[in-house]
C-alpha cells in the first residue's frame, strides 16, 4: 500500500492541494493507494487554507461511505485521502500569534553591541523585525526561513516522518515568490533528508521526493506600504534570488517541476487571514497535474543513495508544463493530448454529475428506477453525507470551475450554465454533441436518466452503503453518456 505525501506550503500549497482534491473527486487516476495531505502554513485563518481543509474533510467523509473493495479504480472519489496520520492535515507553526519577529527571535535579550545583534540587524530590516506573523510572513522568506525551522520538532511532523514506508513518495508544493513557500520548501527537504542520527525514520531519506515550484502567476494591487507589506513588483526578483539558492543548495530532490504564467491577474492585496482568498487559477490545476505525473514516474527513474551518511540524488528530473498555444482563454483544445487524456473526461463527468444534483435530483429520485431500486429516497437525500458532505464537494467544484473561468488566464472549457432543455450544447466549448434520432423521447436529463436506469443493475451494490452505489452509478453513467454524446 503505497502512499503519496503531498506537502502544501503556504497559500499556493493549499490552493494546489484544493485542485488536486477536485481532480481526485472527479475520478482522475493517480498511481498511489492513498494521498496524505500535509499543510504547512502559519496563517490559520487564511481563506485559501480553510477552504482547502473543508474540501478535504468533505471528501474524506464522502469516502467513508464507499465500499472500497467494490469500487472501480476510476470512479469519483476513488483515491483515498488519509486522515489517520495527520487528522488536522496541518503541521502547526507555534508561537507566531501576537508576536513580532524581533520578540520571536529574542532580539531584546541580545546585548546591544554584540555580534548576534549586529548580524540580526544586518539580515533583517527594522520593518522585518517589527513585523507580526499572525498571517504568515507577508512575502518575507528571510523571516520564514527562521520561524519555519521549528516545524520539524512538532509531534505532527514526527508522526508524518514515522509513517513513511519504503515504497512511499513525497511531493512538495510551494511558491517561490512569497514568504512561506519560498522559505519552507528548502527547509522541508533538508528536514526530510537529514542525517541518520537525527531522523525518526531513516526510510524518509531515500524515498523519492518530487516538488513543484510555482513561479509568479498573479499580481496584487499596489497599495501604501503601511497597509500591506506585499508588493508584487518584488515577485520576480524574489523568484530569481530563490532560484539561485535552489540551484546550489537544493540537490536532494528527485523530480522538480516548474510552472509560471506571464498573463497575470491583479488580486486584491491581502497580507493574509480571512481576506486571503485568491480565486482558483489554471496554474494551480496544472501544478496538481505535476503530482499525478510524479506518481506515474517509474521508481527506476529515481536514484537516491546514501554515501557517507549523505543523501545523494542522481539524475534529477526537471519538467515544465506547457499548453498547445498561447490563449487568453484555455479550453480543452488548447491543451496537449496528454493533459486532455488525464482531465478532459473526468472533469466533464463530474460537472454533469454536479449539474444533475442541482437541477434534476429532486425531480428524479422519487420516480426513476435507478433510485427506487437502491433506497435512494428521502432519507438518503436528507442524510448528512449527501446533503452536507457531497453537497459541499459539489459546491466547491462548481465554484472552483467558475473561479478558474473568471481568472487571467482563464480556464473555461466547460459551461455549468447550459440550460436544462439544451444540456449538451456548449457544455464543452468548441465541441458539438451528437444528435440522436431518439432525441424527442430521450434527450437532456431524460437521456441521462436513461443511462442511469440502464446501468443500475450492473452496479455492484453494497447493502448498507447507498452512497457507494450512487457514486459508482453516476461515475459509470456519466462516462457512458459523454462517450455517446461527445465520443471521448
Amino acid at each position, binding site marked *: 500500500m503505497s502512499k503519496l505525501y503531498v506537502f502544501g506550503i503556504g497559500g499556493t500549497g493549499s490552493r494546489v492541494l484544493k485542485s488536486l482534491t477536485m481532480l481526485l473527486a472527479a475520478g482522475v487516476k493517480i498511481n498511489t493507494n492513498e494521498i496524505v495531505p500535509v499543510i504547512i502554513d502559519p496563517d490559520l485563518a487564511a481563506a485559501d487554507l480553510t477552504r482547502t481543509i473543508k474540501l478535504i474533510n468533505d471528501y474524506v467523509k464522502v469516502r467513508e461511505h464507499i465500499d472500497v473493495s467494490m469500487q472501480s479504480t476510476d470512479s469519483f472519489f476513488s483515491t483515498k485521502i488519509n486522515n489517520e496520520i495527520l487528522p488536522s492535515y496541518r503541521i502547526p507553526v507555534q508561537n507566531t500569534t501576537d508576536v513580532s519577529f524581533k520578540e520571536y527571535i529574542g532580539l531584546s535579550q541580545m546585548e546591544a553591541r554584540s555580534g548576534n545583534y549586529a548580524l540580526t540587524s544586518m539580515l533583517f530590516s527594522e520593518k522585518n523585525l517589527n513585523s507580526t506573523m499572525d498571517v504568515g510572513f507577508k512575502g518575507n522568506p528571510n523571516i520564514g526561513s527562521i520561524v519555519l525551522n521549528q516545524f520539524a520538532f512538532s509531534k505532527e511532523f514526527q508522526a508524518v516522518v514515522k509513517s513513511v514506508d519504503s515504497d512511499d513518495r513525497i511531493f512538495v508544493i510551494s511558491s517561490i515568490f512569497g514568504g512561506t513557500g519560498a522559505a519552507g520548501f528548502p527547509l522541508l527537504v533538508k528536514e526530510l533528508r537529514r542525517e541518520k542520527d537525527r531522523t525518526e525514520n531513516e526510510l524518509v531519506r531515500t524515498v523519492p521526493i518530487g516538488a513543484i515550484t510555482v513561479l509568479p502567476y498573479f499580481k496584487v494591487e499596489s497599495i501604501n506600504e503601511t497597509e500591506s507589506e506585499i508588493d508584487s513588483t518584488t515577485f520576480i526578483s524574489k523568484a530569481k534570488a530563490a532560484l539561485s539558492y535552489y540551484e546550489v543548495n537544493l540537490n536532494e530532490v528527485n523530480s522538480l517541476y516548474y510552472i509560471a504564467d506571464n498573463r497575470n491577474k491583479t488580486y486584491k492585496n491581502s497580507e493574509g487571514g480571512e481576506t486571503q482568498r485568491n480565486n482558483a487559477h489554471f496554474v494551480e490545476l496544472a501544478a496538481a497535474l505535476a503530482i499525478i505525473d510524479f506518481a506515474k514516474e517509474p521508481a527506476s527513474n529515481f536514484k537516491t543513495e546514501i554515501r557517507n551518511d549523505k543523501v545523494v540524488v542522481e539524475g534529477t528530473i526537471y519538467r515544465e508544463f506547457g499548453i498547445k498555444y498561447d490563449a487568453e482563454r484555455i479550453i480543452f483544445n488548447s491543451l496537449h493530448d496528454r493533459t486532455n487524456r488525464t482531465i478532459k473526461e473526468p472533469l466533464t463527468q463530474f460537472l454533469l454529475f454536479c449539474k444533475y444534483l442541482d437541477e434534476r435530483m429532486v425531480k*428524479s429520485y422519487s*420516480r426513476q*428506477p435507478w433510485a427506487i431500486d437502491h433506497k435512494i429516497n428521502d432519507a438518503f437525500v436528507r442524510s448528512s453525507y449527501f446533503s452536507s458532505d457531497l453537497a459541499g464537494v459539489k459546491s466547491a467544484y462548481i465554484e472552483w470551475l467558475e473561479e478558474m473561468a473568471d481568472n487571467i488566464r482563464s480556464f473555461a472549457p466547460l459551461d455549468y450554465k447550459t440550460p436544462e432543455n439544451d444540456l449538451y450544447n456548449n457544455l464543452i466549448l468548441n465541441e458539438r454533441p451528437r444528435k440522436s434520432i431518439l432525441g424527442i423521447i*430521450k434527450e437532456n436529463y*431524460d437521456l441521462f436518466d*436513461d443511462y442511469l436506469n440502464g446501468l443500475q443493475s450492473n452496479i455492484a451494490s453494497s447493502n448498507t452503503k447507498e452512497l457507494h452505489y450512487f457514486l459508482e452509478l453516476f461515475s459509470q453513467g456519466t462516462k457512458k453518456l459523454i462517450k455517446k454524446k461527445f465520443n471521448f
Partner: protein
Amino acid sequence: MNPFEVIYRLLVSFFGDDLADYLSGYVCPSEESEGGFLGSNHFVMYSIIALVVALVVMLVYYYAINSPKFNTWKSWLLMLLLVGMSNLLVGALNTSGNLAAGEIGECLVNGGNGGIYAYNCWMFGFANFLVSAIFFIIFSFAFKWKSTNCKYSPF
C-alpha cells in the same frame, strides 16, 4: 361459452341482451332456418383485437419508447386511454355499421321485435373500452418489470 364472451357478458347491462345475442352469433328465425346461435361469435374477434392492441401499446410504451420522460402514471394513463378509445371506436363503429347495413336480424333491432338502437352500439364500444383497458392493465403489470425506465409506471 368461450372465455372472451364471459367477460363481455359481465358487461351486458351496458349494451343490452339483444346486441349481446347478435355478437354471440344469434340468427333470427326465418323461412330458411329456425334461427339460433348459428353465426360466428363476434366477441372472439373483438377480444382478439382488444388483446392485440393492448399488447402492442404495452410493448411500445414499456420497451420501445421506454423513456424516463414518460414513466409517470399520467403517461401510462394516456396509453390506457389510447388502447381503450381505439377499441371503443372499433366496437362502436363496427356494430353501428352492421346495424346500418341490416346485418343484424330484425328480431333483434329496434323497429322489428328487438331493442338494438345505435345507442347500444356505442355502449358496446364503451364495454370494449373497459375490456381492452383490463387487458392493458394485466399486460402492464405482467411485463413492465423488465423495462429499464418504466418499471414503476404507473406505480
